[in-house]
Each structure stands twice: as C-alpha cells, then as structure tokens.
C-alpha cells in the first residue's frame, strides 16, 4: 500500500469525521446505544439468568462487545450508500485518487468509531463490576481480536452499502441479517435454555464463537457447550480463522463491488 493511498484515505476519513461534527446524533449508535445495552441487560436480565463460574455482568460484556461491533456495520453501509446516491462520488472519481483510498478512508473513520465503542463498553463494564481474571497478554489478545472483528464488520458493511445502493434499504437489510445472528447466539443467555434447533444454530453461529473467544481471553465465564462442533469447542483459534476469513471476504468483495458499481 503506497503512502499516497494512506494519505488520501486520511484526508477522506476526516471528511466522515466532519460529518459527525455536523450531525453528532450519528454517534449515538457507538456511544449511548451500547451503554444502554450494558445497563439494560445487566440489570433487567442479570437477576434472572444464572451463569456458572462467575457473575452475569462478567458473562454479558463479551456478548455486548461483539453484538455492538456487528451492528456497527450499518454505519459504513449507510455512509457509502449515501455517497453513491449523491453526486459527490463523481467528484472523487474525477480526482487522481486511487479507488482503494476512497474505501480505506471510510474504513479509517469507522475504525475510530469502533475503538471509541470498545473503550466505552469496557469502561462502563468496569464501573458496574465486570472484571478480567486473565493475564495482560491474554486480555491484549482479546482486544486485538475485537479490533480485527470490527475491521471485518466495517468492510462487510461497506460491501453491503455498495450492494444495496440506498441508505434506507441498508437499515432494513442490515437488521434482518444482524439481529438474528447476534440474538440466536450465546450473547445474552446460555444456549442450553433454547429449543434444540436454536441450540444447533447458536453452536454453529460464528457470532457465538467470537463471543466465547472474547470471554475466554478476558477470563470471563463461558456457557457450557451443549452441541459440539469444532469451532465452538476451540473458540480462540476458530475466532481467529473466522476473522481473517471475514476480513479478506469483506475487503475483496467491497473493492470488487465498488469497481463494478462505478464502471459505466
């Protein structure tokens, strides 16, 4: 990646950040919303759900982190769909800027948002009683995994936005994909309480694997595995394989879709 691509991407990322300065409400889904989820789930469900080997608050955080970062894919999807609908994309296309710099600019800006989200969630967690019982190195690996997962989600979001074309449709389609994927998982309740078919879904659902990996790396309680498949039995290596695969899928598909969309 040449330096000019990174430089141009930073200039373009500043544009997204400027949008946030103009419409600060855009930030609610990376700030207020995750905060609300932590508080709601831990105090509303917390009393009713028993978790082996720790407290519900400790259990919850891994789930909320992955769920929020997954939902964060809607933001890049909406931004890029809006750009593509307006004339502004023609301006960038007529400049001597690489195609990849434009997409990378969106990625940089969204990544800042995801880092803020992770910080807010972990900070709130610490305040209400979430603790890690793992080594520094293991926690660091957990955070790195979250960052790679966030990267994958942003690129998949960009792909979705380019594919869908309209910012309104992004919300609809995004919810249909992300809602079931994050709720039918081990995010909020142990899958052992679900009907058999859903237990299978939760077990093979990569979202569960990511959540288990984060819990394991943070030294937080894991749910007992009821349906055995290799990834959920070995969450950390499986989560790394999944993240790398999703990053590659996202980056390649977003670039290809963008090229396809802007060739006329």
């Amino acid at each position, binding site marked *: 990646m040449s330096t000019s691509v990174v430089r141009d991407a930073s200039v373009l990322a500043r544009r997204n950040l400027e949008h946030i300065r103009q419409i600060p409400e855009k930030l609610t889904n990376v700030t207020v919303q995750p905060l609300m989820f932590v508080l709601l789930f831990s105090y509303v469900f917390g009393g009713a759900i028993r978790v082996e080997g720790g407290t519900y608050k400790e259990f919850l955080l891994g789930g909320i982190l992955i769920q929020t970062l997954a939902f964060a894919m809607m933001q890049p999807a909406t931004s890029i769909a809006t750009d593509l609908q307006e004339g502004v994309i*023609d301006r960038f296309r007529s400049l001597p800027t690489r195609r990849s710099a434009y997409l990378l600019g969106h990625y940089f800006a969204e990544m800042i948002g995801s880092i803020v989200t992770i910080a807010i969630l972990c900070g709130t967690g610490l305040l209400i009683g979430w603790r890690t019982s793992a080594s520094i190195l293991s926690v660091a690996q957990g955070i790195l995994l979250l960052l790679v997962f966030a990267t994958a989600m942003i690129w998949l979001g960009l792909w979705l936005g380019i594919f869908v074309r309209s910012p309104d449709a992004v919300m609809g389609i995004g919810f249909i994909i992300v809602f079931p994927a994050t709720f039918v998982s081990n995010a909020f309740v142990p899958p052992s309480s679900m009907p058999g078919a859903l237990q299978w879904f939760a077990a093979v659902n990569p979202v569960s694997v990511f959540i288990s990996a984060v819990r394991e790396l943070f030294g937080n309680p894991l749910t007992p595995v009821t349906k055995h498949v290799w990834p959920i039995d070995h969450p950390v290596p499986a989560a790394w394989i999944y993240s790398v695969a999703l990053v590659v899928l996202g980056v390649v598909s977003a670039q290809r879709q963008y090229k396809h969309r802007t060739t006329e």
Partner: protein
Amino acid sequence: MYETLVRDTDQPVPQPPVGSGGVHVTGLGKRFGDLWALRNFSITVTPGTVLGLLGHNGAGKTTAIRILTTLSQPTEGRATVAGFDVVRDAATVRQHIGVASQQATVDGLMSARLNLQTIGRLYGMPRREARERGDALLEQLDLTSFADGLVRTYSGGMRRRLDLAASLMNRPAVLFLDEPTTGLDPLSRSSLWDMLRDLVSEGTTVILTTQYLEEADQLADDIVVLDHGETVAHGTPQDLKSRIGEQRLDVHISDITQLVAAQQTLLPYADSEPIIDEAECVITVPIKPGTRIVDVVRTLDDAGIDAIDVARREATLDDVFVALTHKTQTERPNNASPQEQS
C-alpha cells in the same frame, strides 16, 4: 497569475507530449442497451480554445463529457485529453483536468472551505497550499462571505459556483463544464464568462455544454451540435451562421390561416425553406443576399397578406439550432424507435 502548483513528490506527474495539451477524439461512441447515446463523435480541440457542445435534452452532451473525464467507458472509439488516453491513462488524465458536472458534486455536510481543502489535498497539495488556493477561488467566485457555511444550506446557484471552484483547484490544463451557467443569475453568468475568458487566455482548454446558444456564441471558438448522439453540425459560430444564411427576415402576420400562403409567397426571397412559428404567427425566412425589404413588403401586399411587421436581422445560433435539428427530425422520423425501421 497563480504561483506554480507544488505536487506531491511520490506522485510524479508525467508530462504530456509537446503540443498535445488539447483534446483529440476519434469515432467515440457509447451505447446504453439498445440506445446509442453518442455515435461517431470526432473532434480536435486545440489547446487554449473553447469547444461548445450544443444539443437538446438527451442529445448526448453529458455522455461525451463523462467519457472524456474518465467517469464512463466508451463503447467504441478513442480519445486523448492533454495528451493521455482516457481509458489507458485515466489516472494521468485526472491530474490534468477539472470537471464541473451537470449535477453538483460538493459535500453538503461540509463548509465550502473544507470542501475545497479536501479536494486540494486529494490533488496532493500540502495543507496550507490547499487552503490558500481554496480561499482564492472562493473570493474569485464571490463566495467568501459564505465560505464557512454548510453547503447544504447553499442556494442552487451558489452550489454551482462552488462546484466550479472545485473544478479549478488543480489549475487544470483542460476544463470540462457541463451546463456551467444553468441556474446562475445574469450577473453571476457574465462574471463566469469573464473568468472563463481569462482562463482561456492563460492557455486553458475548455469544453463546455450549454443549452444557451448565446453562451456558445460568446465563448466558443468551435461548436458541435449533437442530436440523438449524432454530430449534426460542426464549425465556428460564424461558419454555422453563414452555412444557413447570414440574414433572417422575421415576418409577423395578423391572420394565422394565411401562414402557409405567406410562406409560399416569400419563397422567391428565401435561401432555404422558411420556418413557420405558429404560436407567434411568425415566418422566419433565411433571405438571399441583396434582398430589399420594400420588395418583400410589396409582394406580400400584392398577395393580400396582412403583415404587421417585417424585420431583418443577423442569424443567431438559435436559427442554426432550429434549422439543423428541424432537418434531422424530418429526415429521421422514426429515430425514437429504430427497431421499427428495419
């Protein structure tokens, strides 16, 4: 007039071959499904001159501009801009051109100043130079007092002017303007014309499209008239006017039922077929050189036609336009559905 543009060192700008700063187009065509939006378009634009592209809605003007500015791929033909091929060397072409599209392409959620700075930075300018260049253009386009306002709150004409400023950020060798003065008030329009004349006198090559024939007449050295993607005329404004007869006679009559009779009566004076405007009750006659108005009035009188007004004038591009597109419409009545012809 301006200081030299400092470019990013890791992006050396290939210099075009000497004497090829203009635009060369050969047999350019673009097909959308069954429709040829542009066909057999060939033109050479000498550096430091202005080409005006004229045509009705849907004639193919924007299609031509989009291909030449690398935004769209030609179906056939070739084009070089500032010496570089628009398909093979698209990235290099982009360094040498400025584009103001028909639809404004500025970011509504940023101020005018930030819009221009972002563009300057993407051309590889250092921050300070991008800011200064942007501010100078805002001043030139009379936008300084709104420079920090959100572009979303701009009026249509202000947005258009900002788009023009954006197209000039890199001091382009070739400037493409797609209907640049649509939506501008008369004052902004004439100051834009002055600005373009300055740019051209400094060596900028300009290709502009317009619906306003006066604009092409004022600015263009060379004019191409497009109709349904085909080039129906090409020449200097003067050529085009003399090709269809230099002088016109507008004959305004009182009785609409006499229009055809009047047209027949006027034929002996006509260089080519007189054109009837029913709404206005006017017949426009391209007159033979040396025609005397008294003779025309007497002939009309003898034929019992009541002429309210007979006025001689120089042909305008409007006349060229009406004559040319009128002709192609009568020659190709089924153009809209070519399949039915075969």
